[in-house]
């Protein structure tokens, strides 16, 4: 398969994730959609690593996975903290940080 197909699949997954981030109101699902976008970027990185025959893209993809794991840990910690403070779990309601 030509690598352009992998890149188009990557673009499609990224756009699905972006649409999900914009439409969903549950912060858990927003985090899941962020994961989708990061995975789409990973797919593009691995595809370019294959295109160049260079492992650097795969190493970068692994680093993206590390950062995504950190983001999930902190994000889910925030969701649990929001739940324990009995605030509504809704990104449209949590607007106290707005200027």
């Amino acid at each position, binding site marked *: 398969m030509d690598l352009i197909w992998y890149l188009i699949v990557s673009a499609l997954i990224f756009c699905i994730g972006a649409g999900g981030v*914009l439409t969903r109101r*549950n912060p858990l*699902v927003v*985090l899941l959609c962020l994961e*989708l976008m990061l995975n789409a970027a990973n797919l593009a990185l691995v595809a370019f690593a294959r295109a160049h025959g260079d492992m650097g893209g795969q*190493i970068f993809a692994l680093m993206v996975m590390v950062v995504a794991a950190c983001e999930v840990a902190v994000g889910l910690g925030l969701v649990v903290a929001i739940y*324990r403070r009995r605030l509504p*779990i809704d990104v449209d309601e949590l607007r106290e940080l707005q200027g």
Partner: protein
Amino acid sequence: MAEFFFFLAAIGAVGGAAGTVMLRDAFYSVLALVTHLIFLAMLFLLLRAEFVAAAQVIVYAGAVMVLYVFVVGYVGGLEAGLAGRSGPALRVISVLFAAALFVELTIALVGTGLEAINTEGAGYRAPFGEPSEVGRLFLTDYLVAFEVASLLLLVAAVGAVILARRRSGLGDANEISVTDFLKRDELTKGQGETGEMIEAGGPRGI
């Protein structure tokens, strides 16, 4: 044969992504994302990234998704209104935005001057994508990134514990600052005091 597996994995990955976005129940969204991740690992295998594929399945589909499942189970059956999406106008605009982004990216990809993406990729030597090569690169060329990643994981773990810690009572339920938390040397106090479990009540009546 590679074409068959590519289309199988691509359809599975895109379907899993669509399910993640569209399913109403957060729990089913997590399960759809697990499906997506497994099919994505298949795509990684087709791109000769064996170690990335294995790490994807073990770290992502295994560990991270278990964390998600636990948090969804803890936060519980979200209220019907919350599981939904935004208002219709915003939804239409968002879908239009995502479609425009996809068209733009596709035009950029198809119209690019990069020669390599219209081939099956450059030639590669034997340890390409294997764990030995990944380990060698992490400990030689990318050593700084490797060490910074370990520090980042430590910071994230401490941050998650401080954010999600069990508070001892209703009195400090509004306190979320880390410095306040450290000043009150709660870390050394131990678990002796049983406070009111404010988390038992669930969210304020929504």
